[in-house]
């Protein structure tokens, strides 16, 4: 006797959205703006306050982080960022390695640490092909300070995918579209 076929999901699995092309905006979901804003505000605070364990706990195991290469093009209709090339790309494990450095004496670029401030603009929430996943878009301004010669200001569009699982929202994917065509190494050392 063969098992009955499992019911088909109405869309892709959440993990499928963590890789490959970043999902387009689905239907606008303004009723979720306040809830998602609260999640992202706590997440920014965890980064700025150096609460790395708390921040990592907000990341889904399938989390993917990417900063596409900016492209200065003549035609404004064409994408301003590469669809394939990245300035940086990371999994949760890679970010754990990065944040694990700060307690180590020879983490030269992390000691002294950079003081960051994440300023998040209004968050707009959209649906995605997976029912448990929403997309949240916001403008971001980050400042970083590390002595008189290391002052950073970066602006970017930040696009997040958040997954709901057992009543909790975790970050499934983050794409950071920085505005400057050629960033400095101090700007790229920021976790956005």
């Amino acid at each position: 006797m063969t098992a009955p076929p499992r019911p088909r999901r109405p869309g892709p699995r959440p993990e499928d959205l963590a890789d490959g092309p970043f999902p387009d905006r689905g239907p606008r979901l303004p009723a979720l703006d306040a809830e998602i804003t609260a999640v992202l505000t706590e997440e920014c605070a965890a980064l700025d306050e150096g609460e790395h364990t708390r921040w990592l706990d907000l990341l889904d195991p399938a989390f993917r982080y990417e900063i596409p290469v900016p492209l200065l093009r003549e035609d404004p209709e064409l994408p301003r960022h590469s669809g394939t090339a990245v300035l940086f790309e990371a999994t949760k494990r890679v970010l754990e390695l990065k944040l694990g450095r700060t307690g180590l004496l020879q983490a030269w670029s992390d000691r002294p640490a950079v003081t960051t401030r994440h300023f998040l603009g209004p968050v707009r929430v959209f649906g995605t092909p997976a029912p448990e996943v929403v997309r949240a878009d916001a403008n971001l301004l980050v400042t970083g300070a590390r002595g008189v010669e290391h002052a950073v200001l970066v602006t970017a569009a930040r696009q997040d995918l958040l997954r709901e699982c057992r009543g909790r929202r975790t970050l499934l994917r983050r794409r950071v579209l920085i505005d400057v065509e050629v960033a400095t190494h101090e700007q790229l050392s920021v976790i956005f």
Partner: protein
Amino acid sequence: MPSEKVDSVTTVGRRAFVDDSVLDIEWGRVFRPSWQLLGFAGEVREPGDYIVRTLGRDEVVVVRGEDGTVRALHNSCTHRGTRLCRASLGNTAHLRCSYHGWTFANDGRLAGVPALRSAYPPDFDRAAHDLPAARVVSRRGFLFATWDAEAPELEEYLGEIAWYLDALLDCGAGEWEVCGPPQRVRARGNWKIPTDNFAGDGYHMRTTHRIALDQGIYGDTLADGTRGRAGTDLVGVNIATAGGHSVRAGYVVEDGHSLDDRDPAAPQFPGYPPERWAELAAAQTPEQVRFTSHCEVAHGVVFPNTVFLSVAHDRAVGTDDDPLTRYLVVRSHVPIGARETECLYWTLVPTAMDAEWRRRSYRFQARTQSAGGILFEMDDFENFARIDAALARSAPGRAGPVDLTLGTGRTTAAPGFPGPGHAETGTFSEHNQRAFYRRWAELVGELP
């Protein structure tokens, strides 16, 4: 040239790294007569495709003409000097000046001048106003260029370093493709600082990248996938040439053994799939295999400012199931000023590898040694910035020149090494940096 001549410069004055007047001299004496990397033919595949890059101190439009030829054209209108291309890449049949409308075909010819017949003298020489074009040569897809009409042909200029570039590429058993547009970053510090680091600095690994070693990002897995370094050693070979080019290769061998103890019948290519090793060996000459087999890392400089790195990074930056995976990154270090450098990074992947391997190779580069590589690259940038800050704030005469004597008299010649150039065995040596600065000093001459 005897080895003692190749690496005869043991100190460099501090102002060479911070003084704009030195950079002004370098533009004319170092960059102008040299071949520099502009990018890759794969970035301008179709007629009209262009990218904007820097050649010496000049911005150039690297464009594939309708005839299929790739040219490097000065990005400045020959009328009043306006910058022609404002974007950094695109496709166009013509370059039109935004000021008065002079128009150039994508082969550099002045094709259109508004009011030419009614407002210019009858003997106006249109051909004399074509865009200046540099010499461009595509070598295995690498686009090298020079402004100097008297410079030797590219192959002669590259000399012995061509053998090593070919060996690294032939180890991929076929063609290579460039992964998208380059990563770009502006870093503090003079262009020579990161460049001499790539020339052969094995010495900084245990300090600058101590954490990368401890975290297993680098140097924790043997070629066959065995984790851990027990019972093995890394043997460094430094190869310098009279042209200022250099390579440093690091080999994993069993403790107490030398390179000669490698089994020539069983070559190993760390970072490539073991089931493909026989195929990779067959794609190379026996001499190339003796260079690439067991080689965990190879990096170097094509004088003056092109560098390359081929390295097998560990699964620590991937998942537990990921095998040791190699990447090849080529970089250009373009001076912005005496104290700032733009670094461009191109990752190359062999088309003989499957799509998953190529994707992993690019990701491992992006996670470690990319423009935003927070696990590895940032510690190098940190040191370059620290060097810059301290040198710029030193009063003249406060301290002596920078020292390059590491390994002098302590390394051994490697007479049986299969490649050309002056090869020395010694993990800690500034042999290659001395050769880089010897060539640099030869070109710069006496500083005023």
